[in-house]
C-alpha cells in the first residue's frame, strides 16, 4: 500500500517535468507547425546551464535559496533566449518548407548542441546540488516523501494554470491562438507574424529549459538527456493531441503514472507499455486525447510533387558506369575499403526502402530502423541459437522484418502526417526495448556477437559481391514497383486520398502493402549488415539509426527516385569520413545538414535535377 502511494507520487512528479517539456513542444507546434526535435536539446541545455550557474555562484550566494532559485530561473531564461536565436537564424527561414525538412533542420540542431555541450561541459555526468528549503522529506498519509518531489508535483498544475491565463487573458495569447488557426489572416490584420513566432519560441524554449534545470536536484546531467526526453515528450504531445495544452497535461499524467507503476508491476516492459498505450490511444483517437482534426494551418502552401518520368538516358549511363566501377572495385581496393563500400551498399538499400514509403507513399517513418534491426536480429538470432547457415539467416532477415511490417504497418498507415510518423517511432521504440530488455534471447546491451558469414563468403570481396547483387537488385525492384500499377495507385492515394478511393483504389491496403514491402527491403539490408559487422546491438534499431535513414532520404531528395542512392552515399560517406577525422563529427554533420536544408531544400538529387532541367 505504501509502495503504491510512493509510486503514485513519483509518477506525478515525473509527470510535471514531462509536462513542462511537452507544453513547450506543443505550443511551438501549434503556431509554427514545426515538430521541434531540438526541444530535447533545449531541455538538456537547461540542465547544463543551471548546473553551471548554481555551481559557480559568487561567495555570498552559493548555497543560499536566492542563489539556487535565481539560477534556476536565469537558466530557463537563457535557454529561452537560445531558442529565440535558433528561431531567428534557422527556423524562420524554413516555415514554408515541407514538414520533414523542418524536422531535419531541427535534428541538425540536436547534433550541433550535443557537441557544443560536450565541448563546454565534457563527457562525464555532472551532479547538481540539493534544493535549499526543499531538502529532506515530509510525512504524508503515513509515508515519507521527498520534499522536492512534492514541489515538482505542484509545479505542473501551476504552470498549466499560468499558461492558461497567458493564452486566454492577454492579447498576446489571443494572437497566438488566432495564429494557430490561420497565421496568414493574422498577418493581414497587421500583426507581425515573425515577432509573434519568435516570442512563442522563447516561451516554448524557456519551458523546456525550466523542465531541464528543475531536474538538477533529482538526477545527474548528461549528454543523453536530449534524446531520452524528446521521445517521451513526443509521446506525451501526440497522446494528448498536438497543440492541446490540457491534453499534454493529461497525457503527461498518464505516461508518468504508467512509468511509475510499470516499474512496480512489470519492470521489464515499462518502455513497451508506454508506447503500447500510445499506439492504442492513437488507433482509438487518431488525433490524441484532446486533439482535434485540424486543417493544415493556412499560409504554408506545399508544392505538389512533380510526376515521375522515365529514367533519363544520362542517368542510365551514369548508373551503368557506377555499377561497372563497383564490380571492378574489389580488384582495386584493400579489405578495409571493401568493407566500407559494402556498408554503403547496405545503406543505399536501407534508404531506398524508406524512400519507397516516404516518396511515392507520402508517409513519413521515424522508426524505419525497426525493420532494419529486425532483419539484423532475425539473422543473428538464427545464427546464435540454431547455428543456422548464412543463407538461411539472410532469408530469415526479410521474413522477420516483413512480419513486423505487417503488424506495425496495420496501425501506422491508418493515421496521417505527424501522428503516423510518431506511431512509427513508438513501434520502433517497442522493438528497441524488446532487443534491449529481453536479455536471455537478445543479449540485451551486450548484443549478439560472432555472426560471421559462412566460410565461402568470408572473403571480403565475395561478401561484397553478394551484397551488391542483393542491394542493387532489391533497390531496382523498388524502383520498378514505383512505376508499376501498384506505384500509380500508391501515388494516387498520396496526392488525393478521396479521389483515389473514388476510382476504386483501396488506399489502406495499398499503403499497408507498401509499408510491408519497405520493411522487407529494410530487413534484407539489416541481415547483410549483421553479417558484415559480425554482431548486432540494440542500437541497430535505435532512434539515431532511424534518423540516419531519414537524413539519407531527405538529403538525397524525397521527390526523385535517385535521391536515396545519392543521399545514402553522401550521408554514410560523410559520416564515415568525419568520424575518422574528428571527435566533433556531430557538430560538422549537424552544420552540414542545416546548410543543406537552407540552401538545397529539394535535396541533392533534386538540386541536380533542377539544374539539369534549366
Amino acid at each position, binding site marked *: 500500500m505504501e509502495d503504491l502511494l510512493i509510486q503514485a507520487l513519483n509518477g506525478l512528479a515525473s509527470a510535471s517535468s514531462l509536462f513542462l517539456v511537452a507544453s513547450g513542444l506543443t505550443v511551438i507546434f501549434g503556431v509554427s507547425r514545426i515538430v521541434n526535435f531540438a526541444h530535447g536539446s533545449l531541455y538538456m541545455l537547461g540542465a547544463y546551464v543551471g548546473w553551471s550557474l548554481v555551481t559557480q555562484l559568487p561567495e555570498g550566494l552559493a548555497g543560499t535559496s536566492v542563489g539556487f532559485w535565481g539560477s534556476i530561473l536565469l537558466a530557463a531564461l537563457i535557454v529561452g533566449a537560445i531558442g529565440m536565436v535558433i528561431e531567428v537564424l534557422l527556423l524562420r527561414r524554413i516555415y514554408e518548407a515541407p514538414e520533414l525538412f523542418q524536422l531535419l533542420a531541427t535534428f541538425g540542431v540536436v547534433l550541433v548542441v550535443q557537441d557544443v555541450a560536450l565541448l563546454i561541459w565534457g563527457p562525464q555526468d555532472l551532479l547538481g546540488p540539493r534544493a535549499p528549503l526543499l531538502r529532506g522529506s515530509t510525512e504524508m498519509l503515513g509515508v515519507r516523501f521527498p520534499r522536492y518531489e512534492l514541489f515538482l508535483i505542484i509545479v505542473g498544475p501551476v504552470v498549466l494554470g499560468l499558461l492558461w491565463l497567458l493564452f486566454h487573458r492577454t492579447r498576446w495569447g489571443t494572437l497566438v491562438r488566432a495564429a494557430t488557426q490561420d497565421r496568414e489572416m493574422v*498577418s493581414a490584420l*497587421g500583426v507581425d507574424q515573425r515577432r509573434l513566432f519568435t516570442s512563442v519560441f522563447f516561451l516554448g524554449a524557456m519551458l523546456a529549459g525550466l523542465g531541464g534545470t528543475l531536474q538538477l536536484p533529482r538526477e545527474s546531467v548528461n549528454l543523453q538527456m536530449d534524446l531520452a526526453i524528446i521521445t517521451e515528450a513526443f509521446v506525451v504531445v501526440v497522446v494528448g493531441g498536438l497543440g492541446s495544452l490540457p491534453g499534454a497535461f493529461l497525457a503527461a499524467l498518464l505516461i508518468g503514472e504508467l512509468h511509475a507503476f510499470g516499474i512496480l508491476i512489470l519492470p521489464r516492459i515499462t518502455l513497451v507499455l508506454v508506447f503500447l498505450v500510445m499506439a492504442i490511444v492513437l488507433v482509438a483517437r487518431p488525433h490524441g486525447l484532446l486533439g482535434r482534426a485540424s486543417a493544415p494551418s*493556412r499560409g504554408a502552401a506545399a508544392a505538389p510533387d512533380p510526376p515521375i518520368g522515365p529514367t533519363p538516358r544520362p542517368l542510365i549511363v551514369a548508373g551503368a558506369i557506377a555499377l561497372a566501377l563497383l564490380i571492378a572495385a574489389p580488384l582495386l581496393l584493400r579489405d578495409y575499403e571493401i568493407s566500407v563500400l559494402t556498408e554503403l551498399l547496405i545503406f543505399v538499400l536501407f534508404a531506398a526502402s524508406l524512400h519507397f514509403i516516404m516518396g511515392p507513399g507520402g508517409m513519413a517513418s521515424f522508426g524505419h530502423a525497426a525493420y532494419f534491426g529486425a532483419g539484423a536480429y532475425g539473422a543473428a538470432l538464427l545464427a546464435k541459437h540454431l547455428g543456422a547457415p548464412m543463407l538461411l539467416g539472410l532469408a530469415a532477415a526479410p521474413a522477420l522484418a516483413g512480419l513486423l511490417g505487417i503488424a506495425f504497418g496495420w496501425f501506422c498507415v491508418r493515421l496521417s502526417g505527424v501522428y503516423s510518423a510518431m506511431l512509427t517511432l513508438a513501434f520502433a521504440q517497442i522493438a528497441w526495448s524488446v532487443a534491449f530488455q529481453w536479455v536471455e534471447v537478445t543479449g540485451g546491451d551486450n548484443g549478439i556477437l560472432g555472426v560471421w558469414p559462412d566460410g565461402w563468403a568470408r572473403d571480403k570481396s565475395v561478401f561484397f559481391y553478394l551484397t551488391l547483387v542483393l542491394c542493387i537488385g532489391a533497390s531496382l525492384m523498388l524502383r520498378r514497383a514505383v512505376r508499376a500499377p501498384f506505384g500509380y495507385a500508391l501515388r494516387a492515394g498520396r496526392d488525393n486520398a478521396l479521389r483515389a478511393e473514388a476510382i476504386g483504389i483501396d488506399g489502406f491496403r495499398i499503403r499497408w502493402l507498401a509499408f510491408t514491402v519497405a520493411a522487407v527491403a529494410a530487413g534484407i539490408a539489416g541481415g547483410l549488415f549483421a553479417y558484415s559487422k559480425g554482431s548486432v546491438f540494440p542500437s541497430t534499431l535505435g532512434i539515431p539509426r532511424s534518423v540516419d535513414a531519414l537524413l539519407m532520404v531527405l538529403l538525397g531528395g524525397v521527390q526523385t527516385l535517385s535521391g536515396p542512392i545519392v543521399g545514402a552515399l553522401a550521408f554514410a560517406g560523410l559520416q564515415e569520413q568525419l568520424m575518422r577525422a574528428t571527435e566533433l563529427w556531430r557538430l560538422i554533420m549537424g552544420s552540414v545538414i542545416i546548410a543543406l536544408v537552407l540552401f538545397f531544400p529539394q535535396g541533392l538529387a533534386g538540386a541536380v535535377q533542377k539544374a539539369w532541367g534549366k
Partner: protein
Amino acid sequence: MLDVAGLHAHYGRAHILDGVGFTVAAGEVAVLLGRNGSGKSTTMKAIMGLVPPSAGSVRFEGRDIAGQPPFRIARAGIGYVPEERRIFTDLTVLENLDVGRQPARAGLRSWDAARLFDLFPSLGAMRDRPGGRMSGGEQQMLTIARTLMGNPRLLLLDEPSEGLAPVIIERMVHAIAALKAEGLSILLSEQNLHFARLVSDRAVIIEKGRIRWAGTLPDLIAADDVREQYLSV
C-alpha cells in the same frame, strides 16, 4: 488613394493577373466586377501582399507598397476582408475583434467594440460566443468588424454579399453606406450588379486577369453591351 498599375501575379506557374490597373479615389466606393475566376480575389490579395505581385506597382496614399509583407500593408491603413471570412473559430467575438486591433490613426475616429456593436447590433448580443458557432451572416459582420478594428483608411471587401440572405444583404448595404459616410474609401468585389449598384460610385470590370472597362455605375447600367459581354452568366 489607391493606384494600381501593371499588376501581375502568379500562382505557381499559372499567370493570373495580367497587368491590372485601376484607381480608387479618396472617399469613394469602387466595385471590382467580374465572373467567377476572373481574378477579383487575386487582385485584392496582391494589393494586400498575400499573393506577392510579380510585377507592377501598388501605390497607397502616394507610397509604393507592392512587395511589402501583409502586416506592413495593413498597418499602412488598408483593411482586408477575405471572401472566405476566415473567422478565428476558437476565439470569441470579442477576441476576434481584439486580434484586429491596431493603434488609432491621426484624423480618424478610431473603432472600438462598442462602436462596432452600434454598426452591427447583432454582434453585440453574442460577445462571448466562439466564432465557430455563428451563422454565415454573423460571421460576415464579424469579419468586417474585425478588420475595422485596425482603423483602415481603405477597406478591401471581397464579395461581402456572397451567400447571404436578403435581409442580411440589406443590413450590409446600410453598413457600407455608414462607413462611406465616415470617410472610408472602399474597394469591393462582386459578381453581380444587383448588390454593387446599391452601394458603389464607380465600377471596374475585370476578366481573365485584365481590366476591360471602367466608369461610373450609371454609365455601366446604360452600357448593355459591356454587361452582356463581361457580366452575364
